């Protein structure tokens, strides 16, 4: 009887010893695989960045990570899942542009940036305006002049009206004082295909979306709406300093649910920083035309707030603000 439970006893001893040398058990993070919620479908830009991040982050996080595509409702399903998860760092969410545009454009959108604790920004890509290679418009000035001559005649393919892609196009047209017909597609991808087929005169897309076609000499990018030159698109004019300048980026970052404890949050921020500085991650991102623009913690939060305000204004002036 005395030696009835030797192994459990040894295990308890060992466990106690282990605990004595480590942090308190409840603060140990991660205790289980970390889920990265991707609110959009497989194959899109957000999915791509999320999967690359999940490939490289585990070694800095000290635990495994898996992605889950929770799609639907212009991202509402995934964002809401991520925001309502238990705030212990085991459920992270891709915080992307839609999180700051949809609350201003979609009535009853269930979440916004304030539902999250910001972790880091990974990439921000400027929006661009491109035309077909055979287009008579060689420069953005040509394009604006043509649009000025025949208001509404030029067709511009965009993503859905709730997106930053569409809002950027509308904001540009307003600043440039031109009138164009915006034709919303399911995303920038289909809008670019419509441009290649000659069904629209121009298309809005972010730099990584337009890049493959630009490199294939299938389209001409007239302008990048950016404050700084775009390294992946040398020779493409930027809008900075011009009267029609709008600074609109498509961004992809990581967020945790609001209320995540400080120690866990700082652990996440540091893992994210190390991942973003990992040369292998940077190289993989580069293959998709994406530069890593790192912004951490509260600074990212500040930036999200600003973006939210900007798009609220843009939606109001475009006349598509949600009531």
């Amino acid at each position, binding site marked *: 009887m005395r030696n009835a439970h030797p192994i459990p006893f040894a295990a308890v001893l060992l466990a106690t010893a282990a605990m004595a040398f480590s942090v308190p058990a409840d603060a140990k993070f991660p205790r289980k695989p970390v889920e990265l919620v991707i609110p959009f479908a497989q*194959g899109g830009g957000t999915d791509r960045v999320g999967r690359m991040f999940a490939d490289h982050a585990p070694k800095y996080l000290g635990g495994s990570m898996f992605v889950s595509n929770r799609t639907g409702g212009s991202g509402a399903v995934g964002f809401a899942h991520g925001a309502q998860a238990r705030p212990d760092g085991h459920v992270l969410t891709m915080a992307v542009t839609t999180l700051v545009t949809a609350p201003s454009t979609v009535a009853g959108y269930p979440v916004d940036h304030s539902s999250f604790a910001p972790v880091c920004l990974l990439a921000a890509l400027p929006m661009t305006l491109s035309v077909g290679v055979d287009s008579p418009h060689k420069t953005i000035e040509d394009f604006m002049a043509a649009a000025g001559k025949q208001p509404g005649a030029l067709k511009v393919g965009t993503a859905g009206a709730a997106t930053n892609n569409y809002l950027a196009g509308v904001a540009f047209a307003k600043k440039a004082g031109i009138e164009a017909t915006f*034709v919303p597609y399911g995303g920038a991808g289909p809008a670019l295909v419509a441009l290649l087929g000659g069904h629209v005169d121009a298309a809005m897309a972010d730099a990584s979306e337009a890049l*493959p076609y630009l490199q294939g000499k299938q389209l001409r990018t007239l302008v990048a709406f950016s404050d700084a030159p775009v390294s992946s698109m040398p020779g493409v004019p930027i809008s900075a300093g011009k009267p029609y300048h709008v600074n609109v980026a498509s961004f992809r970052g990581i967020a945790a649910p609001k209320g995540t404890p400080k120690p866990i949050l700082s652990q996440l921020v540091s893992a994210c920083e190390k991942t973003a500085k990992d040369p292998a991650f940077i190289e993989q991102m580069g293959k998709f035309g994406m530069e890593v623009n790192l912004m951490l913690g509260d600074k990212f939060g500040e930036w999200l707030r600003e973006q939210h305000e900007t798009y609220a204004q843009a939606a109001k002036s475009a006349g598509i603000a949600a009531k």
Partner: protein
Amino acid sequence: MGELFLQGVGAILQPDILLILFGSVAVGIIGGALPGISATMSVAVVSPLTFAMEPLPGIMALLGIYTGAVYGGSISAILLGIPGTPGAVATVMDGYTMGRRGQAGRALGIATLSSFFGGVFSVLALGLLAYPIAGFALSFGPREYLALAFFALTAVAALSGGSALKGGVAALMGMFFATIGIDEMYGTSRFHFGQLGLMGGIPFIPAIIGLFAVPETLAAIQGISAVRRRSLQVSRILPERSALVALLPAQLRSSIIGTIVGAVPGTGSDIAAIVAYSQGKNLSRAPETFGTGCDEGIACPESGNNAAVGGTMIPLLTLGIPGGAVTAIILGAFMTHDLRPGPLLLQNNADLVYQIFVGMFVANLAMLLFGLLGARVFARVIQIPEAMLAPIVLLLCVVGAYALNNNVFDVYVMAAAGLLGYAMVRVGLPRAPLVIGLIVGPMVERELTRTILVIRGDWLQLFTPTSTVIWILAALPFVVPLVRRLLPRGRRRARLTAAGNAD
């Protein structure tokens, strides 16, 4: 070119590449056959594993899974009445009916041979006519898509199973359900009542699973007390040669349709199968047999959906355009290997292009082999007593609905769709038109909106050369019978009046 082709054959006939191709086709068939695991999901799940491979085996693995999964959808459609993938919706009509007659083996055989025909046809089209087809596909703008969507909608008539009125009611129900959620174009909220699960629209695959599978299991449960022994014989797999020869024209037409519909960006194997089934019935010598378990009713959608596989690769390889979710993932795989599909691929990596071409051919061979060898095994499913099969199928429904988005709400949708499907069966409303409404309804709406934006009020502009042809093709099956009916009647009337005059 010949040399490159032979090099391609050499590269593919390596043991490791062959192993990957056969293995991935098998994985694809299983994924496709499991309800709720679509071709897109199978490819997405495997794609990260391929990043560490060399480019050729990595891309071959994805193409093998893609080919296998689109085919695999037909297996559960035939055996269980559940379309394993959206592309197999039309296969349920005749495939499942034939299987219930005790000819599941024959149905699987025809599905396999037709899928092989469609797959090989589209690979040949990819190899020989990629550039003209890509150019034609790119010429599809909002007006052409709108016409194509209407063409697909006419399939409602073919899938109504007798009553066009009932079919129309079911299709309108489907189109209504498709409007639920946040609209993709202008972000308008419609009928979701603040329900998070509904904001993204009715999740499509859970709805299909519920509509088709649940009523069958409920009916089976009702009949369980009357212990029926089912036919224990698995019918022959290969139909007689004369039947096969008779199928060739239908397979060829469906393969052409499938390749083109696949090549057009934004449409894939689901629309291809629907259009192929519809034209198959309209051009058939015996249209009345469609829906009663006829050979052609299986051959058309199966040739169509597998032809779409090669079709979707055409714009991807020639122009770098991913036409759908699967090709978007494959494009991603190319890019992680520093390869850019598009005009430059044939210049810089011509060898790879030929290897892909040969590899896809071999993938279709693997599919044929597994399909014919496996059919005898798969078909034994019908020997499982209902009392065991029904709960297994219900379990598959729940797991399949959940697996798609890891979302319990989808399981509720599946259950609700199941009850709706049961009610529809009871009142005699056909279910396939509802699914067509769900698939094609949003396409009609979006393309109509874009068309209105593009033509800016000038309705004559609706008719471009291509769209006009499609409109005529869509209208013909409805106009021709009317004309035929009017003509003899006119003659008869003339004869009658002549007779009256003689009196």
